[in-house]
């Protein structure tokens, strides 16, 4: 039961994106299309699971004074591993994420979870925590990219991560009326602000009952 709680708290109460505002750079940069967001989530999940598990496994060996450098080396290794795997097997993701893939190293969520959770808890708990936080991160990222892509291009499409020609699914809504503003830089900040506000409405739902549904949709 407790394991389920761990996963749940990562999704809503401690949602890393809309509640804690951690690791905001990739959120703004990789949500211009659904494909990018899914690729980023996949890379992030793998890195977080590897680092959380390894760090919690060696939490008793590492002296307290040098723990941050040790964590950073573990994270950098995991990220480089992930980057090389993507370069070899999923070139479209590697190319479209560009420098942001490497920047998972300095993502505050990864280091934050290592420091706040994995360094104090058992391996299984840290593993569960990594899954929960990744799901929270993924849902937020996918919600935001869907919001931006639908408003920006009028359609939602998910390309295969391994082959940029193959389209997994595509929904057209108002194809000729997309406001490309939302896929541009300024639109990223605007959508993030709007969605964070809507998420707050959902999170503080006892305040107003009829707004609850609106927050859920986003």
């Amino acid at each position, binding site marked *: 039961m407790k394991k389920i709680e761990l996963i749940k708290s990562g999704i809503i109460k401690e949602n890393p994106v809309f509640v804690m*505002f*951690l*690791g*905001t*750079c990739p959120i*703004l*940069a990789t949500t211009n299309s659904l494909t990018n967001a899914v690729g980023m989530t996949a890379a992030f999940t793998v890195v977080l699971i590897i680092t959380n598990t390894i760090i919690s496994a060696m939490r008793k060996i590492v002296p307290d004074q040098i723990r*941050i*450098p040790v964590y*950073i*080396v573990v994270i*950098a*290794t995991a*990220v*480089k591993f992930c*980057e*090389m795997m993507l370069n070899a097997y999923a070139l479209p993701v590697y190319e479209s994420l*560009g*420098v942001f893939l*490497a*920047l998972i*190293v*300095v*993502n*505050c969520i990864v*280091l934050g979870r290592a420091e706040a959770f994995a360094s104090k808890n058992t391996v299984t708990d840290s593993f569960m925590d990594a899954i929960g936080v990744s799901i929270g991160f993924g849902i937020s990222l996918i919600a935001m990219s869907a919001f931006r892509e639908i408003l920006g291009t009028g359609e939602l499409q998910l390309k295969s991560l391994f082959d940029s020609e193959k389209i997994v699914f595509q929904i057209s809504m108002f194809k000729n009326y997309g406001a490309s503003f939302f896929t*541009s*830089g*300024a*639109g*990223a*900040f*605007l959508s*993030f*602000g*709007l969605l*964070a*506000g*809507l998420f*707050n*409405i959902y999170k*503080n739902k006892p*305040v107003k009952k009829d707004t609850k549904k609106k927050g859920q949709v986003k």
Partner: protein
Amino acid sequence: MELFTLFISAVLINNIILTKYLGVCPFLGVSKSLKSAFGMSLAVIFVIFSSSIITYGIYYKVLVPYNMEYLDLITFILVIASLVQFVEMVIKKFSPPLYKALGVYLPLITTNCAVLGTALLNIREGYNFSQMIVNSIGVPIGFMLVMLIFATIRERLELATTVKHFKGNPISLITAAIMAMIMLGFAGVV
């Protein structure tokens, strides 16, 4: 002339925060007061400038000759972490008041993606030495410019009446969106 264009574009058009989305965490976290925004920007200018030069040197003089490019991330992050530690020690020794004023923000520069991002982009864009120098001065100056403007706006924003759920970070992000739109206007300059 070409270097001047590069400088202007690094400061305004390709502004590190508003158009490249790097270093957004300190942008939201440290901009609550003008004083801390200024101290943070100064420290970031120093760290980005010196870390860019060191990582550029290491990449082309050590990693490339020995075919070890795949070690770039690990080397760069270690250089940045030790540099930040070094800056912290120097400031603590020579100017305790400044050290106190910067507080927790100093070690946080290690996890500022603008620093690692600039180091990586210098390599990926294939800049030569002088371009790299100009770029790594322009980028933190752009960072400072946006931080200072945003901090002053934000001090006023705290007093404004906002919808309850949007108070704090959400409304700041919407303000940042307007700033980013203004930055788009500079695209015609160069």
